């Protein structure tokens, strides 16, 4: 890898795309390992971009239509908006819960709670989220917070009938749907859009917990919703690696998701790393991990043991193992 002096020597040529490919790749590598200098490069790239601003020309009129044709062909699968993803998973769970007999609500689910208690856990989460959307208070929202508010909810609603609890949960979720579109502030340090995707993810996960406890078949989320969840999980990869002390600064891997949502992702193996346009310059990934998207999401939610995750690995097996082991680092109850 180049050193700081060589980086400084090449930085302007790099920002102007005036380096040889091997030098540009060396700078890319340096940036992956030194996120603290990214702002400096961005400043020079910004200046370079403005150089081109005085050249603005109206493109021929047919370019717009051709672009849309290519866009439609390029991405037939689209991600649901965070609010839509959340709303659709809430709706799916509401339908499933409507068919649960109160006696069956005492069945034990994956995390040791009964179905009824799991609904109260969801109620606690949606109520807390609605509060945070109105008046942010939490600095972060982690498993400890979830456990505390769930215990409080369980204590307060010990006698609440199952379908009454479902109704309360649904009302809280609807409040979130009404409030979220108008919120600009961060919620527990996250963008509201990300929080909604997390809630959609958790709603689906617990929906699946309930389905399994009842011994029922179920269907996965819609492709668009699944894509939004998969994308969120990919953006989380550097952070789950860091949280489990498995980060590898300066390296990157490729994740290929198959099945309902086929997609390919380039993920940095440590936080704070920029996504560089023109990633061709980054060279070969240290590992390529290919997994089914549903399996991956279930692993991310800590609902599938690492050893059960069917996967194909090219490159460094240790990196692939770390990705699989670290995936559920942020999974809670």
């Amino acid at each position, binding site marked *: 890898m180049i050193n700081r002096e060589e980086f400084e*020597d*090449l*930085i*302007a*040529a790099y*920002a*102007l*795309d*005036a380096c*040889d490919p091997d030098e540009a790749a060396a700078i890319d590598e340096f940036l992956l390992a030194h996120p603290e200098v*990214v*702002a400096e490069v*961005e*400043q*020079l*790239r*910004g*200046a*370079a*971009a*403005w*150089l*081109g*601003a*005085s*050249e*603005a*020309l*109206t*493109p*021929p009129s047919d*370019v*717009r239509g*051709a*672009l*849309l044709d*290519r*866009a*439609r062909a*390029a*991405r037939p699968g*689209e*991600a*649901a*908006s*965070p609010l*839509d993803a959340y709303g659709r998973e809430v709706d799916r769970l509401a339908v499933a819960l409507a068919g649960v007999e109160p006696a069956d609500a005492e069945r034990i689910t994956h995390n040791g709670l009964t179905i009824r208690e799991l609904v109260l856990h969801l109620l606690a989460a949606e109520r807390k989220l609605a509060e945070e959307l109105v008046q942010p208070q939490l600095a972060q929202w982690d498993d400890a917070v979830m456990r505390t508010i769930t215990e409080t909810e369980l204590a307060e609603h010990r006698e609440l009938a199952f379908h009454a609890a479902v109704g309360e949960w649904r009302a809280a979720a609807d409040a979130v749907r009404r409030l979220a579109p108008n919120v*600009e502030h961060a919620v527990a340090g996250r*963008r509201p*859009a990300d929080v909604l995707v997390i809630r959609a993810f958790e709603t689906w996960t617990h929906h699946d917990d309930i389905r399994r406890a009842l011994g029922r078949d179920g269907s996965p989320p819609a492709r*668009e919703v699944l894509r*939004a969840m998969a*994308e969120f999980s*990919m*953006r989380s990869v550097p952070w789950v690696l860091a949280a489990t002390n498995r980060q590898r600064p300066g390296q990157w891997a490729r994740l290929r998701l198959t099945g309902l949502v086929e997609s390919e992702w380039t993920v940095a193996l440590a936080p704070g790393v*920029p*996504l*560089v*346009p*023109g990633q061709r310059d980054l060279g070969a990934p240290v590992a390529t991990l290919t997994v089914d998207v549903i399996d991956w999401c279930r692993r991310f939610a800590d609902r599938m043991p690492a050893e059960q995750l069917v996967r194909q690995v090219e490159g460094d097996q240790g990196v692939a193992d770390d990705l699989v082991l670290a995936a559920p680092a942020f999974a809670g109850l």
Partner: protein
Amino acid sequence: MDDIAIQADWETVMRDRLRAGDEQALTDLYDQFGSFVYGLAARVTGDRTAAEDVTQDVFVTLWERPELFDPERGRLRTFLGTLSHRRSVDYVRREEARRRRTNRELSLTRSVPDVDEMAMALVNAERVRAAVETLPRDQRDAIQLAYFGGKTYREVADVLGIPEGTAKSRLRLGLRRIAGALEAHGIEQWS
């Protein structure tokens, strides 16, 4: 909330709309930045057809992989300008493309700049042009050869008959001066 924060928020919203597959977001961004991307590509490639291809490639890349744009790192104009320039330089550096460019260079006539481009962008572009004009001649020539000529610093050194280290130094000093002038006008890398 200041203008920069408003711009960053707008760009975050647009990125999220692209993620959600909102075609209207793509066309809105094309309408806003299409002339910038196309004009830069046309200037660097010297070839209108190539510039059309580059323009489509840039916006299709943004459509397919909106996560590549991180509003917390930089502005959308920088992202699109970087993509457009890289694709254009790739084109220029292919030998066959070079030949075609030479043949077509003479037939390329400049069009009237797009008046629909944001008024502030035009004002800022003029400031950038002025900042470039105030550069020492040797720095200006090096930057124009590299950025608009699509040449590497080694090729810049060869054209100007100077050592490679001097070419890198002129690019560095010149670009930093432009960045400094932009900051002094409150433009920086955003807007």
